[in-house]
């Protein structure tokens, strides 16, 4: 049996604009035109005010490190990466997403919470995944 590959997302109709944004090098999230709040993960209605008037906006690609673990066990396809950082990051709009940190050592000393990050996109399957690197690291 071949070694497992990393899981690749398959878009659904409501998430497709997000994944199309990633392929274009943009981090697109939803904004409710009724109450003005931002929404992530993509969905058909605003969880704050029930409006279905959601528009897609481009976030600026920055984030802060909200929380993380350093996995010492390999998830499917991650054998080469161990240890690796699984993080929850917060975008300036206040929404959060899970991601991996790249271009930084998987060492707690290098990873203070709230450190500034910027998005980078990595091809995976038919999509591009948003990963995050320290804001000051080389592009």
């Amino acid at each position: 049996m071949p070694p497992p590959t990393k899981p690749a997302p398959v878009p659904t109709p409501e998430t497709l604009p997000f994944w199309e944004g990633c392929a274009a090098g943009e981090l697109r999230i939803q904004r409710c035109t009724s109450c003005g709040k931002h929404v992530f993960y993509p969905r058909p209605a605003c969880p704050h005010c029930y409006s279905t008037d959601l528009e897609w906006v481009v976030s600026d690609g920055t984030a802060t490190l909200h929380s993380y673990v350093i996995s010492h066990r390999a998830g499917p396809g991650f054998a080469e990466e161990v240890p690796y950082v699984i993080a929850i990051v917060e975008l300036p709009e206040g929404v959060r997403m899970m991601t991996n940190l790249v271009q930084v050592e998987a060492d707690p000393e290098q990873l203070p919470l709230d450190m500034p990050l910027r998005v980078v996109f990595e091809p995976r399957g038919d999509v591009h995944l948003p990963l995050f690197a320290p804001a000051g690291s080389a592009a």
Partner: protein
Amino acid sequence: MSAKDDIVIIGAAETDQLGKLPHLSTLSLHLEGARNALADAGMTPADIDGIATVQTPGPVSIAHALGVEATWLDGTGVGGTSFLFHVRHAAAAIRAGLAGTVLITHGESGRSRVDAPGWGRSPQSLNGQFEAPYGVFGPPTAFTLTALRYMKDTGTTLEQLAEVAVAQRRWANKNPRALMQDLVTVDDVLNSKMIAWPFTLLMCCLVTDGGGSLVVTTREKAEARGYDKPLVHLLGAGEAADSPMVSQMPDLTSFGAFKRSSAAAFAEAGITHSDVDHLMIYDAFAHVPIYGLEDAGFVGRGEAGAFVAEGNTSPGGKLPMNTNGGGMSYTHTGMYGMFAIQEAVRQVRGEAAAQVEGVERSVVMGNGGMFMAGATLVLGKSPR
């Protein structure tokens, strides 16, 4: 409360053994726990008309295998806290006349995985799109993701997190059925194998096979049967949901479903924290009981780590917690909530291995998924 509205647990038992049981399928684990609980209640399947359990294999299979023609079935599956939901749902169903006596079963081949459901999720699911691609590998790398945020915001230390595992091992040390019984120190915990920083192996739950069941009915029916054990009364219950993905919790430092379900259960029971003699908080990982202590209001924000480290939840402490040793030292099949209820029943009856003196009221708080759903039960020796 009238005898026909007073809901009681009349039967409670686990499988004969817990641990590594490759000779028992998931169904067999359910049925062994069910037979033991029915025997504990002095009943046979003919006395049961309601069945509640989770997939796998689900309430239809359990009813069929036991030959029960159920008038009420509940398959609520919200992870390891499902059985607390089932108790609450059974109470409502019995009071509404939909069932007379309900059997709630759990069986899980968590370790040997004999007919266990697969882990795979669709790459189109929310999890498949927004969490699985980042190399999460089950609960040890996802449930744990909130802890560093909590520790930074509250000043809780790694040593205090380790103290949760130390305290529970003190209870397990008194329990011959606990899988891990040897006392451990904070250093032992911190120096055990790193799983997902900051969590080491001893801060994570066990992975075992096992099962357990409950029989729920009314005090009126129980008294009519001449039951010879102390009845365990359901004084209050609450249930709540949070987020289907840990990354989408509104607040990583607090579990809303613990807050809301405990508030509802305490209000229904008409109790305050000082009325609680014994506490079970689902401990899939060391930080979960810390959240529970704070979210239910037993201690203030950021105080739980010190509270545990000072021995308050250990043997001899003022709030004995997870007295079977918990998911970290006793057993953890995957959906541990059933075992938390079982220990609370034993403590209220006065038949626990590490019995706490004079338990009038016990509170059980269950987590489902990874901070996904939560429920709280208040159990008591006397009716409300």
